[in-house]
């Protein structure tokens, strides 16, 4: 328990550091939201609009430090401010439109990829030299080495555009109303197939390889040999003895991947027009929308810290050594 509390304290400090960076980094960019709007219009916006825009966005000339403390106090009250790019919608509302879809899309992709990759890794290590071991890792690593953007475009072009098996984008059919009906759910899954599929293909190799390698190390250790010598069933040796221990490094990676779910699905969402949060971040940066940027970064930070904490908990459960509070 003390271990978990210690970690919690560490996360609080990390959270504060991230909040501070969230505030200062966007403000180091030249320009402001009002000028960014002119980029989109290239001369179609009258020069007079500038004064009105500055007035609208309430750009203050207050000292940065003062703005920083106002920001901190607002965040603590859960007030993320008003988005500039989606004026006058509050940031929390803007983020809410995309977050669930991103969590669903990228979360599914990470979980599926981790589960399949790890299982294949176990199989590959157990049947070392078999065809899974000799073909799958290299093929998957090869696929994963392509830039994700390209892979996704090719998948969209071949499977969506040319063959017409999958929809070209969006999270569900445009003519459907979101509801907890079987039809709607099926449609959501059909729309998610291609984005999730491409992410899984691109990341599978990493999971497989890391699990396979740590399995091989563990399989060579004495306690596994002992288990074998005692004549335990092979499945029990692999799963209860070897895999459980070999899983630890992968769990760390899994926690990281889970944390990056909210920020990392940007490319997927752009290629497949998925109404998620990744695209919001692009919009926020393009429009120098400080409040929205801060809001999204905050959510990402919390997700990373939260999932790391989750990993700590899982570690405690998987690895008895962490439980004793060893120093």
């Amino acid at each position, binding site marked *: 328990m003390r271990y978990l509390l210690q970690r919690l304290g560490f996360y609080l400090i990390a959270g504060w550091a991230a909040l501070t960076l969230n505030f200062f980094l966007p403000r180091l*960019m*030249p*320009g402001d939201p009002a*000028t*960014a*709007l*002119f*980029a*989109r*219009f*290239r*001369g*179609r916006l*009258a*020069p*007079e*609009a*500038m*004064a*009105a*825009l500055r*007035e*609208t966005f309430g750009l203050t000339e207050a000292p940065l430090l003062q703005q920083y403390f106002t920001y901190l106090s607002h965040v603590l009250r859960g007030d993320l401010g*008003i988005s500039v*790019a*989606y*004026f*006058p*919608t509050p940031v929390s*509302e803007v983020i809410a*439109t*995309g977050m669930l879809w991103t969590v669903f899309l990228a979360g599914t992709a990470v979980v599926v990829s981790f589960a399949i990759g790890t299982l294949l890794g176990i199989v590959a290590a157990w*049947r070392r030299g078999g065809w*899974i071991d000799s073909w799958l890792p290299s093929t998957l690593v090869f696929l994963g080495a392509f830039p994700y953007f390209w892979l996704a475009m090719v998948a969209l072009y071949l499977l*969506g*555009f040319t063959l017409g*098996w*999958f*929809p*070209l*984008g*969006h*999270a*569900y*059919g*445009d003519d459907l*109303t979101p509801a907890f009906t079987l039809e709607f759910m099926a449609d959501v899954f*059909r729309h998610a*197939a291609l984005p999730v599929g491409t992410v899984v293909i691109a990341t599978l190799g990493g999971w497989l390889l890391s699990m396979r390698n740590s399995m091989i190390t563990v399989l060579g250790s004495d306690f596994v040999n002992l288990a074998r010598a005692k004549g335990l069933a*092979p499945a029990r040796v692999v799963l209860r003895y070897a895999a459980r221990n070999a899983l630890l490094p992968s769990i760390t990676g899994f926690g990281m991947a889970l944390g990056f779910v909210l920020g990392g699905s940007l490319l997927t*969402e*752009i290629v497949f*027009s*998925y*109404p*998620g949060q990744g*695209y*919001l971040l692009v*919009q926020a940066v393009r429009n*120098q929308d400080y409040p929205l940027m801060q809001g999204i970064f905050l959510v990402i930070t919390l997700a990373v810290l939260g999932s790391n904490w989750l990993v700590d908990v899982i570690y405690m459960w998987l690895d008895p050594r962490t439980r004793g509070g060893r120093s």
Partner: protein
Amino acid sequence: MPSTSRATILLLGLALWSVPTGCARPRPTATEGVLVVSQEMQSSWVRNFNPLTTATAARWPTLAGIYEPLFVFNSVRTEYVPWLGVSYEWRDARRVLRIVTRDSVRWSDGTPFTSKDVVFTFELLKRHRALDRRGVWAFLSRIDAVDARTVDLTFSRVFVPGFDEIAAQPIVPEHAWRDVVDPVAYANEHPVATGPFTEVRVFRNQIYELGRNPDYWQKGRPYIDALRFPAYPSNDRANMALVFDELDWAGNFIPSVDRVYVARQPDAHRYWFPLTGSSIFLYANTSRPPFDDVRVRKALSMAIDRELLVEVALYRYSRPADATALSDGYAAWRDSVIAASGDWVRYDPAAAEQLLDEAGLRRDAQGVRCLPDGTPLSYDILCVSGWSDWVRAAQVIARGLSAVGVTSNVRTNDFSAWFQRVQEGQFDLSLGWSFEGPTPYLFYRWLMSSATVKPVGEATMGNWHRYGSATADSVLDAFEREADPAEQRRLADEMQRTFVREAPAIPLYPNPSWAEYSLARFTGFPSAEDPYADPSPNKFDRGECLLVLTTVRPR
């Protein structure tokens, strides 16, 4: 272990079997009479129909489709079309603008539209400076309703071009907006409006649909039942939807449109890119020598191969600019004789070399031209990273300038960094846009009026090259006070003559207005054969897309 391999084979089989049954892409549900449009690039929609706040906050076509302006400006025919206002006249030595509003117009909730609504709208702008996007209260002093159909706008000074800004203002209903506490941050989710499309039928994060106004004041119009807007996050995605006929109308840039879009369905897919966009310039910072010398500016201009430039940068969608720099949006104002007299936009490296020699910029031993004090001429041409048309144009320019002994390199900056540098005048050469307006007044004002020149280091919205011309000042000043069309033409000619003579900036090409549409389900879009208006959905700022929205009809 044989059982494992059997399981693997089973799984693989399952996977292979499930792929083809992922069922074929459903063709878009083409509901009859519903026009599918893409104008904004977003991944999900945020509900906002406020026509008064920032141009991008409200969903299209809030400014010209849900709400309407007093007069619509047709940039293809260069004329005003009476809309909520039926006529206007200048009174009291052009100090008062009297506008007569249309009778028989009703707001979508049934309340009659009157002159009171116009007065209310403008007073709202006065109370909330943030809403005054066109800066009308810089020249207005008061507004009064004379009777239920007549409005008097009193000017604080004689300023005839002010009409353009008043005409374009979308009008909101007093009865629905009177009690809005903060109209700046008001999302106006249920618009009460006068336009052809006022009923929000569907609003979800991926799609929204606007139904026709059943009591629209143009009886029988609009002919289409509803507008539908799928959210596409990128140009590429919207173009794909166009190619697949999921979209009926869009305003995107498409590379090689004939091959990519038209060839896909030659009997239905159409585009028309009239050159009514803003003109693109190469700005030379005239606060720095040698660009203060008109001969140098003209020489640089003659060193640029514009034919090559429009081919490389713009797939030949545009034409080389003439010496008046006016786009086709000013076709009615442009004087072809004056334009032809400006020979400095023709590609002529020999003449350019001669002019540079005359200006005293001799070549040194390495062949690089130098200032009289010996500083070699070596410049960065600034452009915005990611704006590939500009970058390619800058490369053509750099090659041309270097050939006549002025070493130039293309330097791309992030938009904000670029914008800051040009605004503050911290550059030598840069690409840039120009401003659009119904008359050449605004365009030339921001190119050569002394009133727009700011000292280097101070940010300015236009005239980044910092050029002021005494001749232009007096002509622009006279134009501000002139309401007679014939006299206005004469003054506009004078502006063109001044520009051709002084070459304040180096025009490159007029930007096209992008528009693609499919005739598979709808007809009546503007085209080169029937150029009744600008075809682009992007032309909403002065109400022009209302002309298209009220003309397009189902087949």
